[in-house]
């Protein structure tokens, strides 16, 4: 089978208005900026975005917030983005806050076919509201349910022609986890290399999980 890379614009057109989109990135480090730009350029609307944070205005998914592409975000914090806070208070943006480790595990559970996980995080806090509490070995845990999405947009360090991916230092963060949890996975690599350049032990996301690869800028 021959797999080809597509433009960021073409990838953005695969993502319809109203879609749920998981994104890699931690304060925009490890966020696929060209895919974000293409979503803004095509005027995406009503997206639900799922990831660590909304970065800052003008950076990473902060650009999606600025441009009004987002109806809802499921993130662990918004403290660094005043635009997110302003839109939330104005009622233009729904913000669901999830503890960061719980967010990672909920996405992982979605990708790994688990029905949920039990975590001690959030017990006895506002996070517990509306959730099932389960006691195991005398300790109380919250039952946290899986998260999946229509799309995942990843930033990778290298991709090979089989779409195998590597990540770099702290740009890895949520990228490998979301690669398992979305129906359609789109990766934006920094480099695209021939098969064999990435050794099997260096692959962090097997290419079979990746549906579309974004070509390098020409």
């Amino acid at each position, binding site marked *: 089978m021959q797999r080809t890379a597509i433009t960021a614009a073409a990838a953005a057109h695969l993502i319809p208005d109203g879609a749920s989109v998981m994104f890699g990135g931690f*304060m925009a480090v490890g966020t696929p900026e060209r895919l974000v730009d293409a979503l803004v350029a095509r005027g995406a609307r009503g997206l639900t975005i799922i990831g660590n944070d909304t970065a800052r205005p003008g950076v990473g998914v902060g650009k999606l917030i600025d441009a009004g592409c987002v109806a809802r975000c499921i993130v662990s*914090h918004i403290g660094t983005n005043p635009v997110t806070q302003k839109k939330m208070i104005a009622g233009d943006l729904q913000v669901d806050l999830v503890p960061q480790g719980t967010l990672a595990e909920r996405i992982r559970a979605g990708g790994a076919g688990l029905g949920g996980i039990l975590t001690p995080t959030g017990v006895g806090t506002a996070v517990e509201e509306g959730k099932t509490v389960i006691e195991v070995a005398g300790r109380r845990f919250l039952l946290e349910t899986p998260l999946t999405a229509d799309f995942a947009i990843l930033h990778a360090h290298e991709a090979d022609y089989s779409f195998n991916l590597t990540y770099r230092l702290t740009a890895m963060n*949520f990228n490998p986890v979301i690669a398992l949890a979305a129906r359609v996975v789109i990766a934006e690599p920094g480099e695209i290399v021939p098969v064999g350049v990435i050794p099997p032990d260096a692959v962090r996301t097997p290419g079979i999980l990746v549906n579309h690869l974004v070509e390098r800028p020409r």
Partner: protein
Amino acid sequence: MSMDAKEIIARRVALELRDNTLVNLGIGLPTLVARYIPEGISVAFQSENGIIGFGAPPPGGMEDPNLTDAGGGFISALPGAAAFDSAMSFALIRGGHLDMTVLGGLQVDGRGHLANWMVPGRLVPGMGGAMDLVAGARRVVVAMQHAARGESKIVPVLTLPATAARPVTLVVTDLAVIEPTPEGLVLRERAPGVAVAAILAATAASLIVPDGVPEMALAG
């Protein structure tokens, strides 16, 4: 908070570092602790965005957009560093592999409960990794100013949303070291030159005062 207050807190917290352990420092004041690691102590610092073994900002022009701390600031990696994803990062945090986390605080109450992630109606930054850190680290040290805007941050009962049901291990402020115990908050140490009476006057929660409260030692 004056530079002196921050420095006192950071230098006292640094004495809590244990050899050959993994430590997570929160953004802001807690970061300063790394400047005062006592001699003979080797500590690995974790940044929850996915690295163990990070170092000071890189030389000018050598910043790497793929290498930052949890606050988004450029860092360097020390020899022997290890990178990993968010699931692994929080497995380390929640699984008890962190000996200590040092976090800032908005309030600590008489039972040792911490609030540090939101002020309803005014500030909703979100909990980020704080709830996992407090739930999972072996020791949770709160590094904060004793008072803010003239009001004690050590209160009888939290008026802000709690970060965890679990009490913290130790509270280090510019005035005192306070240990939450099942009996209540115990005043363990005084900041240099600060009298017990001054601490009691500055604290809204009641404190248990043992006979003889020593002055805190400071690292570095």
